């Protein structure tokens, strides 16, 4: 990862964090950068079980898990440090839906002594039994709503039917936590992906992973892990944090693409001089850098708001703005990077090309920039 020689462009931690936070931010940052430096390039590979377990071994899937469940119980800012590093390293593992959301659900819903919840927590500690949260009843859904999937008594026990959208990395996933309406309430059920009656259609995604539509045809399920209004609130909270982490990850991708492109412009020579001397190219880079600086500020504001009150409308608005800006900033920077690398940038093995592939999927995941700008304005008006 080439760092800018002139200024620290990392999103977190900031110089200010250094004064106010303990040393844990700096230590986590150092170990994350050290870890990814020692890994082979991720460029283009599919999400893998080995990579997932490596993240678990570092303790990064359980950063936000309560201590009672063996987690580190650290603030979201620490999660963001890992998210940014993942972005820079172009790792395609689905941390948002498979770890961030999962840890939030454990934090907000787990009942002491519950074996099922202990199992969910354990999956974040060792990365062996991989769980994912599926909650989208519609392809374009960006906020929690009463689930369309239904669980009703049938046969010897309970049966689940309906359809979910947006499962990432199905090939990596062993079981799902599915939201469904049960007895008139929102409830959460664990469903092994291999259960009879679970049919999924995978589509490959630009980041090397996949996204799946899953149909549940009267799938037998055990009693719910949680039930009632708390599930919807926890789900929304989990979703907001996943969005926040995706924003920071996108910033990481975008800034890494910019630094890589700048390094190329400083060294690549044409017409007898470094192409970075050409004004047209310089100005295009500045425009991308402006967007990234705005994205970084938007992410920091969202992190600060989240630390103060994770579920306030103002926090959710700030997160929406961060996702919108980080998506657009990353995409504009990666597209520019491909263009300025010339034909080299168009090759599948180029780092800059893979930045674009990752940014394209991350920017669409959980809602495009346009949809989050719409959410931002609606949420802003809600709390004014």
């Amino acid at each position, binding site marked *: 990862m080439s760092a*800018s*020689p*002139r*200024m620290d462009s990392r999103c977190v931690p*900031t*110089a*200010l964090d250094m*004064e106010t936070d303990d040393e844990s931010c700096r230590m986590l940052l150092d170990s994350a950068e050290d870890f990814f430096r020692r890994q082979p390039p991720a460029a283009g590979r599919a999400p893998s079980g080995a990579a997932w377990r490596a993240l678990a071994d570092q303790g990064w899937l359980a950063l936000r898990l309560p201590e009672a469940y063996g987690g580190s119980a650290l603030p979201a800012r620490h999660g963001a440090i890992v998210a940014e590093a993942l972005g820079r390293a172009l790792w395609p593992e689905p941390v948002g839906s498979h770890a961030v959301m999962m840890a939030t659900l454990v934090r907000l819903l787990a009942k002491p002594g519950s074996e099922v919840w202990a199992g969910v927590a354990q999956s974040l500690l060792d990365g062996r039994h991989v769980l994912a949260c599926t909650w989208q009843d519609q392809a374009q859904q960006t906020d929690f709503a009463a689930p369309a999937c239904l669980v009703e008594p049938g046969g010897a026990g309970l049966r689940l039917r309906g359809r979910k959208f947006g499962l990432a990395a199905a090939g990596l996933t062993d079981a799902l936590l599915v939201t469904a309406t049960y007895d008139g309430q929102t409830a959460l059920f664990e469903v092994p992906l291999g259960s009879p009656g679970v049919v999924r259609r995978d589509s490959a995604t630009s980041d090397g992973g996949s996204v799946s539509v899953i149909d549940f045809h009267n799938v037998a399920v055990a009693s719910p892990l949680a039930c009632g209004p708390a599930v919807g609130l926890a789900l929304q909270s989990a979703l907001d944090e996943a969005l926040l982490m995706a924003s920071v990850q996108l910033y990481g991708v975008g800034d890494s693409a910019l630094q890589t492109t*700048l390094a190329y*412009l*400083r060294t690549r020579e044409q017409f007898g*001089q*470094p192409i*970075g*001397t*050409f*004004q047209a*190219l*310089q*100005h295009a*880079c*500045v*425009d991308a*850098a*402006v967007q990234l*600086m*705005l*994205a*970084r*500020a*938007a992410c*920091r*504001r969202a992190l600060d708001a989240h630390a103060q009150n994770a579920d306030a409308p103002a926090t959710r608005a*700030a997160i929406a*703005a961060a996702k*919108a*800006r980080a998506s657009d900033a990353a995409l504009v920077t990666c597209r520019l990077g491909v263009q300025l690398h010339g034909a080299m940038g168009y090759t599948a093995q180029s780092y800059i090309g893979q930045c674009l592939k990752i940014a394209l999927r991350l920017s669409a995941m959980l809602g495009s920039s*346009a949809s989050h*700008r*719409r959410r*931002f*304005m609606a949420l*802003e008006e809600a709390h004014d």
Partner: protein
Amino acid sequence: MTETAVPHRDALPDAVFRQQWRDWIAVHYVSALRGPLQRLVGVEARAWLAAQHRDGWRAPGLARAHGGMGLSLRKQWIYQQELERFAAARPMDMGLRLLAPVLLRYGSVEQQAQLLPRILSAEDTWCQGYSEPGAGSDLASLRTAAVAHGDGFLVNGQKTWTTMADDSDWIFLLVRTGTGGRKQDGLSFMLADMRSPGITVRPIRTLAGNTHFCEVFFDDVFVPRTGLVGEPGAGWSIGRTLLGFERLSHGSPEVLRYAFDVLQRTCASLPPEEAMRAMPTMERHACDMADATALYDDVCATAAAGGDTAAAFSVLKLFNAETSQRIAETAHELVGQWGGVQGIPVESGLGDDLEWLYMVTRPLTIFGGTSQIQRNLIATGALGLPRA
């Protein structure tokens, strides 16, 4: 002005300071002019600044030893926030904003003692003579010349885009006193009385209809030796001095916020189906404003903590200026055939003069370094790209 005469407000708790300043503004601001794009001029401007001076609210960033408030960057930020919140029209106040830092750093003790108190009391107002017809972005190629004459200099040449020259007592200017070497090396920083024989001021009308934009002609204007600041030939570096929050305030998104308010009012005046069509653009600009504010708050906090923020302010100036223009353009497009109409026709249902907003935001990307020059500076500075 002695140090004890100015209340020591930097020691106040932030909230108390903010409230006192807010209350003071509400009582003492008398002009009908509001908004960040409005200029307070003439008698109104002098009265507003003189009142601040009288009550110890003048010159937030200037040290108390020099008659200022001696506020920390953090307090200066609050000071600025309250002015923006009230939407007080801004006097140019170039004497304080641009000349005072120069005098403190490069001026003689006599120059400081003679000029600073009159700047603070608003007895003297100053204008800036930098640009010339042949020297805009390439300022160092300016040609107005000062040659030694008796106990001073004779100045000949022409300055242009001199804001408020028609309402100023003095002018500080860059003149050429030497030739040869780098073109930057032959420049000197001089102070001239606008009442000097040989100075002619001709107002220029702008696209926004203002006339405080002037040409200033110098025909054998005598400037005494005491009007030279610093060493002859040192003008280039002297002329680039900025102090404290003045630099920070260039990043403020207040114009952006104002333009967005106008856009919201404009949108509210549209038929519902038209307003619906405008929503995606509104949402984009709402996010632009929110993110620029986040970046501004971020860099102000970094600056207050002693961090390096020079690049971030260039970025903010660039983004805020261009986005303010885009918002003005959006508002113009939304109103269809009311576009290009000056004033606010009653039948239009509009709340603002959109033609004026469209025109008055044009120079935001020209003054204080064009957006193209800003991009050059950011590219070779913060981004570390090689110079051509």
